[in-house]
C-alpha cells in the first residue's frame, strides 16, 4: 500500500485490546523516577479496573518504551506507538520529553497524559495533553500557603539557572509578588561546584523567606554550603521535597527546612492511597513521590477509555471530553481535571523531616486543591 496507508495502523474492532503506550525513563539519569511511576501505573491500572485489567470488554495492553531521558528516543518511541495504533500515551519522566511528546500528540490527535515532568509548559499545551502530576505553580502556591500573610515581606528565590529554576522564579514573583511580597532571585549555574559565593549572597540578602529551587546531583553540597554560611540562622528556608532516596542529602539541616511536598508515602491518608500502597508493596516496590503520578495516570486513562464501555479507547476526542472537568478520588485526595487548560487540581502538602541520619517525612499540613490551584494557562 501507499506509505500513508501503511502509517495508519490499528484495526479499531471493539473487542481488540485498548493499547496504552508508556514512554518513560526506564534507564538513564531519571531511572528511579521512572521506576516509581511504572509501579504506580501498574497499581493504578489494577485498582481502576478492579483487578480485571479490562475496560468494558476490552483488555488494556500496556507497551513500555524506554526513552532514557533523551527526547530523540522518546519521539521515535511515541511515533512507533502512534503508528501501531495507540491512541493513548502516558509517561514522560523528564520535562524535555513531555514538551516534545505533547507536540506529537497534538499533531496526531492522540491522548497524552504527562507524568512526573513538572514543567508548566505542558498545562494548556493543547487539546489532547493532560497531566497526572503537579506543576511548578502548585509547588509555589504550596510554599506561599505555608507563609500566611506575606505582605511587605522579602522573599528570595535561590534557583538553578535553568528552565526549571526560571519557572520557579517566575511563579514566585507572580504568586508572592501578587500577594504583596517583594521577590528577588539568586540564580545559580546548574554546573556549579562550589556554592559558597551563592550561599554568602543568600545570607547577606537576609530575606524573610528563602525559596530554594534546585534539582540535581549536587544538592547535598548546596545544603551544606547554606548551612555553613549560616543561612538558616537568618531566614526561613522552603524547598520541594524530593524522592525518599535523596532525603539523607539534606544532611544536618534537614530539620530546619520547611518542605512543600507533592507527595510522600502516607501523605494522602485516603482509601485510594491504601489500595495503591498495598499493590505496590505486594509487587515488591515502595511508594514514593512519583508513584502517585503513575497511579493517577492509570486512573485517568481507564476512565477516559471506559467512558463508553471501552469503545472510546480509540476515539481521542471522546476521551478528551470525558476527562475534561472530571473529578475523582486519587491517592492524594480529590483530584480534578480542569476543563479549561487540563491542569490537574490536587491537594498539596507541607512537610518536615525528622530523625537525623535516616530521616522520615512528617505531614505538617494538607492544602486543599483550590488553595494551590495554578492560574488558568492560555490555550495555544
Amino acid at each position: 500500500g501507499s506509505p500513508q496507508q501503511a502509517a495508519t495502523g490499528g484495526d479499531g474492532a471493539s473487542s481488540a485490546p485498548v493499547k496504552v503506550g508508556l514512554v518513560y525513563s526506564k534507564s538513564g539519569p531519571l531511572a528511579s523516577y521512572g521506576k516509581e511511576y511504572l509501579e504506580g501505573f501498574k497499581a493504578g491500572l489494577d485498582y481502576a479496573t478492579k483487578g480485571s485489567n479490562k475496560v468494558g470488554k476490552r483488555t488494556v495492553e500496556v507497551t513500555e518504551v524506554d526513552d532514557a531521558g533523551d527526547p530523540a528516543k522518546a519521539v521515535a518511541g511515541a511515533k512507533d506507538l502512534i503508528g501501531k495504533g495507540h491512541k493513548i500515551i502516558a509517561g514522560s519522566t523528564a520535562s524535555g520529553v513531555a514538551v516534545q511528546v505533547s507536540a506529537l500528540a497534538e499533531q496526531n490527535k492522540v491522548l497524552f497524559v504527562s507524568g512526573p515532568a513538572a514543567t508548566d509548559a505542558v498545562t494548556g499545551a493543547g487539546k489532547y495533553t493532560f497531566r497526572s502530576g503537579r506543576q511548578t505553580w502548585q509547588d509555589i502556591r504550596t510554599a506561599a500557603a505555608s507563609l500566611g500573610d506575606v505582605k511587605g515581606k522579602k522573599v528570595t528565590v535561590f534557583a538553578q539557572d535553568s528552565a526549571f529554576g526560571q519557572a520557579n522564579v517566575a511563579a514566585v514573583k507572580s504568586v508572592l509578588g501578587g500577594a504583596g511580597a517583594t521577590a528577588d532571585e539568586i540564580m545559580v549555574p546548574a554546573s556549579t561546584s562550589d556554592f559558597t559565593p551563592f550561599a554568602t549572597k543568600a545570607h547577606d540578602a537576609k530575606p524573610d523567606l528563602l525559596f530554594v529551587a534546585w534539582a540535581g546531583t549536587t544538592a547535598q553540597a548546596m545544603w551544606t554550603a547554606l548551612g555553613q554560611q549560616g543561612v538558616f540562622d537568618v531566614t526561613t528556608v522552603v524547598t520541594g521535597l524530593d524522592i525518599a532516596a535523596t532525603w539523607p542529602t539534606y544532611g544536618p539541616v534537614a530539620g530546619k527546612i520547611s518542605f512543600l511536598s507533592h507527595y510522600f508515602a502516607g501523605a494522602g491518608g485516603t482509601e485510594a492511597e491504601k489500595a495503591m500502597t498495598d499493590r505496590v508493596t505486594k509487587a515488591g516496590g515502595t511508594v514514593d513521590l512519583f508513584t502517585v503520578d503513575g497511579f493517577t495516570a492509570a486512573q485517568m486513562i481507564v476512565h477516559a477509555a471506559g467512558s463508553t464501555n471501552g469503545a472510546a479507547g480509540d476515539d481521542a476526542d471522546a476521551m478528551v471530553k470525558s476527562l475534561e472537568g472530571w473529578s475523582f478520588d486519587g491517592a492524594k485526595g480529590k483530584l480534578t481535571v480542569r476543563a479549561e487548560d487540563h491542569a490537574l487540581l490536587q491537594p498539596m502538602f507541607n512537610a518536615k523531616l525528622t530523625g537525623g541520619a535516616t530521616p522520615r517525612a512528617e505531614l505538617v499540613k494538607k492544602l486543599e486543591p483550590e488553595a494551590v490551584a495554578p492560574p488558568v494557562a492560555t490555550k495555544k
Partner: protein
Amino acid sequence: MSTLVLLTLTGLGLGALYFLIASGLSLIFGLADVLNFAHGLFLGVGAYATWWAATYAPFGVAVAVGVLAGTILAVAVELALIRPLYARPIQQVLVTVGLSAAGVALLQAGWGADPLTFTKPGWTATTTRVLGAAVPNDRFLLIGAAVAVFAALLLFLRRTRYGLIVRAGVEDRAMVTALGIDVRKAFTVVFAIGGAAAALAGALAATYFGSITPGLGGSLLIFAFIVVVIGGMGSLTGCALAAVLVGLVQQFANYYAAAGVGEASVVLLLAVVLLVRPGGLTGRTAT
C-alpha cells in the same frame, strides 16, 4: 573583608580540587601523550570504593582503599588496553572514550543513577572562623592534599627516570628500547600514579560534595581538561597555577558578576589563553 577572605579561601579550595583532578590527567597526558577520557572513571571508581570502605573502616583507611582501587584499575587499563595500542596514539585516546562510557554505565548498573550520600567525616563537616569568615574545613583538607600531591609528583618527575623514559618513549618508542630500557614498565608506572591521583581526587571530591554519582567524574573532567590545557599541556607547575587561577576566577566571578558568568568566564579564559599562548601558561614541559 570577611567575604573576600571567604571567597579567596574557598576559591583556593576549589582550585585544589581542580588540581587534584587535573594532576593525574596532566601527568598521563604530559608524559604518555594520552588524553585519558577514562580519568573521570578512575575518579569515580576511587569515590565509590572509598564510599564502600567507609562503611567498614575509618575515613583514612577508606581513602587508602579508594586510591588502591583506582591504581589497580589504572594499571589494568594500561596493561590491557593502552599497551597493545602504543603504535596507534589516536586509538589509545579513543579506547579510553569507550572505556569511560562502559565503565560509568557499569557503576550505574551496580549502584544506580541516584546520588549516594557520603557522610563527611567529623572535622571536615564543620567550619573554622578565619577573619570573620566561616570557612568549611574540607577546603583545608583539599588544599593540604593538593600541596602534598603536587610535591610528590614533582619528586617523582625530578628524582626518577620514569618521566624521562616515558617522554622519550612517546617520541620514539623503538629507540628507547634500543637504549636498553624496558619502556613498557615506565608507562605502567606512570598510569598507576595517574590512576592513584585520580582516585584520591575522587575520594576527596566525594567528601567535598557529600554525595557521589556515577557521572561525578565526567562532570568534573571538563574542568580538569580546561585546567590542564590552560596550564600548558603536561606541565605540572602550570597545572597547579591554572587550577588556582580557575578556582579563584570562578569563585569571584560567581559572587561579583551575574550567575553563570563564573562557568562561562572559565571557558572563555581557556579560549583566550590558547589563542594568545597556544602552549598554555607555561610552555610544554613535564616538570
